[in-house]
């Protein structure tokens, strides 16, 4: 079984994240970048399958700037076998549609039985990339799985829906995205960290993927962004016997009760 796991380098959620007002793009210098945790859960699903089924192969794939290689190294140190990094100046500011098209081309080139991804990144949070990749490839999508069971021919799992949960399954090849309730990611061990550097890491450009030069420029345009308004002081209620009524009034006015 060959599993390709999509990973993404994102700003650390522990720190404040901001958009650059001049470009409308994420300010990547403003905070430390880390491998998105949700992808590590996706990788964990793959690693557990590999632990039980020797001979399986795990490829991690990212589209991102040069520094995104750190996310790949982390994934390699956790146990992935090889990595593919799609990096191209023209992909700067790539929107969701472009990202999905490029990822689809890249996974196709790498080859796979299963593509695993997080259901949404902690930065952009569009939550549609796995679905769009599936659409490009004409393959089934199991979206937002809380649990994943994998056999040589099928993938199945449980999805939360408003009224309860669904048990879903698909024949391979397929695309699967997982939620934060899926497998807790392992730590890389020292040996994994030290051997990560020796594992194959391929770098691909748009040209390598046979995508034309125009593919990089997004089909959507950010018109404006505005900063979150500064916080204003909250209203203080001093209890002179009417605080409860005032509080209830406040909540009702805000349609909170």
């Amino acid at each position: 079984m060959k599993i390709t796991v999509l990973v993404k380098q994102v700003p650390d959620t522990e720190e404040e994240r901001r958009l650059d007002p001049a470009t409308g793009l994420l300010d990547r210098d403003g905070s430390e970048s880390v491998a998105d945790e949700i992808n590590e859960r996706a990788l964990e699903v793959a690693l557990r399958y590999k632990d039980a089924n020797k001979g399986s192969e795990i490829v991690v794939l990212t589209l991102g700037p040069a520094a995104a290689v750190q996310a790949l190294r982390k994934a390699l140190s956790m146990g992935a076998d090889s990595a593919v990094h799609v990096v191209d100046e023209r992909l700067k500011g790539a929107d969701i549609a472009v990202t999905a098209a490029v990822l689809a081309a890249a996974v196709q080139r790498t080859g796979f039985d299963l593509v695993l991804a997080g259901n949404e990144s902690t930065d952009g949070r569009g939550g549609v990339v796995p679905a769009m990749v599936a659409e490009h490839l004409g393959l089934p999508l199991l979206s937002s799985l809380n649990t994943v069971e994998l056999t040589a021919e099928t993938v199945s799992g449980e999805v939360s829906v408003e009224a309860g949960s669904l048990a879903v399954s698909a024949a391979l090849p397929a695309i699967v995205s997982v939620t934060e309730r899926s497998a807790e990611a392992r730590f890389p061990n020292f040996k994994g960290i030290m051997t990560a550097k020796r594992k194959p890491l391929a770098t691909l450009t748009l040209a390598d993927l046979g995508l034309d030069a125009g593919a990089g420029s997004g089909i959507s345009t950010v018109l404006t962004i505005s900063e979150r308004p500064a916080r204003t002081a909250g209203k203080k209620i001093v209890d002179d016997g009417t605080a409860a009524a005032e509080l209830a009034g406040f909540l009702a006015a805000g349609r909170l009760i």
Partner: protein
Amino acid sequence: MFELNEDQQALVAMVRDFATGALAPHAAKWDETKHFPVDVLAEAGALGMGGIYVREKFGGSGLTRSDAVMIFEELAKADPTIAAYISIHNMVVWMIDTFGNDEQRAQWVPQLASMEALGSYCLTEPGAGSDAAALSTKAARDGDDYVLNGVKQFISGAGSSSFYIVMARTADTGNRGITAIVVPANTPGLSFGANEKKMGWNAQPTRQVVFENVRVPVTNRLGEEGSGFGIAMKGLNGGRINMGACSLGGGQTALDKSVAYLKERQAFGGPLINQQSLLFQLADMETELVTARTLLWRAADALDRGSPDAMKLCAMAKQVATDAGFNVANSAIQLHGGYGYLSEYGLEKIARDLRVHQILEGSNEIMRLVVGRILAGA
């Protein structure tokens, strides 16, 4: 040498993730309940922390001493007591890997490196601490066995460990009559004293280890008969810089907490950090830690390169770093005022834990003795 390379950044990042998730949230409780978390140690072992600078052949991680001091500092930021025990365990595993033969390595190193089995280092006796060469625990040769009799004092991990490296007397020839022998926990005649009540290091047991006609095969001996004192001292070179690193980790946490606290605490019309005397105090704490860290990294590098002045540098670094860590923790209590004295703020525990690093693995007076003797050429 003064910047973390890419590998070290990744190693430290992983250790930080592990320590903040698996150690820090429990450290206060373990201290209070005197709980030795062997399950968490096994998790650390699975990540490679049980044989950090042990060769990979028998399950070690094959890292350097320079890597190790960074790892121990990071662990100690979360819990100096657990970090320090992991250091002692690593010293034991390294001694077997370095001075044992292939059979002994194959038998003991894999289970120790994974921390499924724990190790203890038995040098000190009730009547022989700083003057360790005066130890009197006897190992008498009887056919293919040694028969051990005597008492070891203050043994970290005792009662929980599976293997004890015992420095025992095989001849009445001073430090040349000492032999290192591995004693498994289940050997008849081996028993343990009560868990000592102590100032800090509560999350790891400290007990006497008592030998009454304890019989082990001669094949449990590390190296040659009479080489045990040298083996014990070589183990301590690395142990000392690790202990220094543990003190720096504890001190760093105490300093970080102090900076945050003084920025927040309002008095005399503003945050306390605006008081220049307090800001200078913080600066002194930072300088003391960085000074110590710089020397510590140099000592680790000397050990990695097998430099002839490694022993001296390790002794100097142990003294400077364990003094720095304790001083910083103690100052941090003062900077927190009354809150520093409350357990809830986590500072008094750091000071209690770091205090013993100035005493053990060669007291800081003995570090001066080591340096002074080398200086005097004696």
